[in-house]
């Protein structure tokens, strides 16, 4: 090999990412080229220095404790029905009939208490999930409102905004051709909501900004309706067979519902 090693090959060499053949060729070149040997050494030194300097920040013990508690709480939530079940009351009767009736009553009480406990636990868990989802939605909307945060795709044309998502999200959606009066499409962002890729569409209703989040419908969707209001923002949602949608804005709820209704109809009308 006569040509000098490229920066990319030098990086791969320092990182141990060259294939055996590439490595053999690189070594052969290094044996005769002092310039590349010097570069390779410099790369290795830089890598070692970055590794040392990069290990800089450590979590506080409080954060580690909080995270441990988070996992432990989740584990306890799963354990709760088991521990309750182990506290099963025992009834003793002297006569057969009374004994059977006692067991039947105990079984009924047990089933009822399990049902109530499970329902409460499920409600508490779902309420937590809903609160987390709403907080994340509000956070993303507020971030998008900042003047310093222009949309990733800026266009009022639905034929520009929709195709921009091709290959970026694992589902498709339709945008309405006719929007309600004083409503216009401003653009969109690709964002992640609860770890899922989501299309965040921006609309304006008068001077009010609206975010509409569209994501692929999944079985793990947070159950139950979202609250209609959070941090002074109004929320409305709809679902189709393929997508779940949530809209958020400080605009009048009726006008927000009008917009989401139009978007929802665009999904269904295109299928007909």
């Amino acid at each position, binding site marked *: 090999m006569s040509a000098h090693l490229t920066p990319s090959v030098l990086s791969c060499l320092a990182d141990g990412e060259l294939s055996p053949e590439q490595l053999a060729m690189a070594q052969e070149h290094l044996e005769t080229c002092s310039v590349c040997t010097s570069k390779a050494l410099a790369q290795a030194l830089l890598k070692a*220095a970055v590794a040392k300097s*990069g290990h800089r920040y450590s*979590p506080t013990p409080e954060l580690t404790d909080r995270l441990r508690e988070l996992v432990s709480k989740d584990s306890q939530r799963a354990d709760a029905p088991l521990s309750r079940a182990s506290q099963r009351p025992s009834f003793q009767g002297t006569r057969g009939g009374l004994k059977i009736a006692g067991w039947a009553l105990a079984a009924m009480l047990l089933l009822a208490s399990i049902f109530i406990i499970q329902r409460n636990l499920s409600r508490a868990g779902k309420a937590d999930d809903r609160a987390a989802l709403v907080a994340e939605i509000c*956070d993303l909307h507020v971030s998008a409102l900042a003047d310093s945060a222009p949309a*990733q795709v800026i266009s009022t044309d639905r034929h520009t905004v929709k195709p921009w998502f091709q290959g970026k999200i694992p589902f498709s959606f339709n945008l309405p051709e006719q929007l309600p009066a004083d409503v216009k499409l401003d653009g969109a962002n690709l964002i992640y909501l609860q770890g899922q890729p989501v299309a965040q569409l921006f609309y304006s209703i008068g001077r009010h900004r609206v975010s509409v989040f569209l994501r692929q419908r999944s079985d793990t969707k947070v159950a139950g309706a979202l609250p209609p209001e959070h941090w002074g923002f109004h929320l409305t949602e709809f679902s189709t067979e393929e997508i779940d949608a949530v809209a958020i804005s400080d605009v009048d709820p009726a006008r927000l519902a009008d917009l989401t209704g139009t978007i929802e109809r665009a999904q269904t009308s295109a299928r007909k």
Partner: protein
Amino acid sequence: MALLSWKRAARESTVQSSMFEDLALPLVPALYNVAFWLARNDRDAEDLVQETFLKALRGFGSFQPGTNFKAWIFRILRNTYLTSRTGLAASRTVALEDELNEHGDSAPSLYPEGVIDRHTPELNLIRLNDGAALHRAMEKLAPPLLEVILLCDVEEMKYKEIAAVLEIPIGTVMSRISRARAELRNALQVEFGINRRTRS
């Protein structure tokens, strides 16, 4: 005896939580370190790690046992960062791929052709043990370059793992690493050049 379905589900969930704890807690220092580098302050870094944990815990059912947990949870951290305020602001200020070819060989040459520099920034760094200079140089890196160099050099991930975390092709990983090192070197060159001038 077959367990009732709710009992079975509860036991499976307990086992999952325990498995999650075993896998995730040892990674807290690494997650926090990368989170701090990206967020640039302790409060945002803590929020980022906590949110990552919450998402990972809830989505742990979708994790395939036996696959790379570290890459999986770092991907969640990175996606969480991207949707955070600092992440969104950072993502809009950089368009790297436009400036690079697939393998990054169009990046400016690291060294003048045919010259062996015995006063390279790397050697100066070692000589002066100047970790602060490198720290400043790393802070100047654009987030996409910083994250790739942290995963590669600090977390010692392979290119394949980095590609999985960042959800980009391996070629892009290679080009970004090459670019990041070139920028670090340039920043150090400026730093030491100025220092030399100041001293002389």
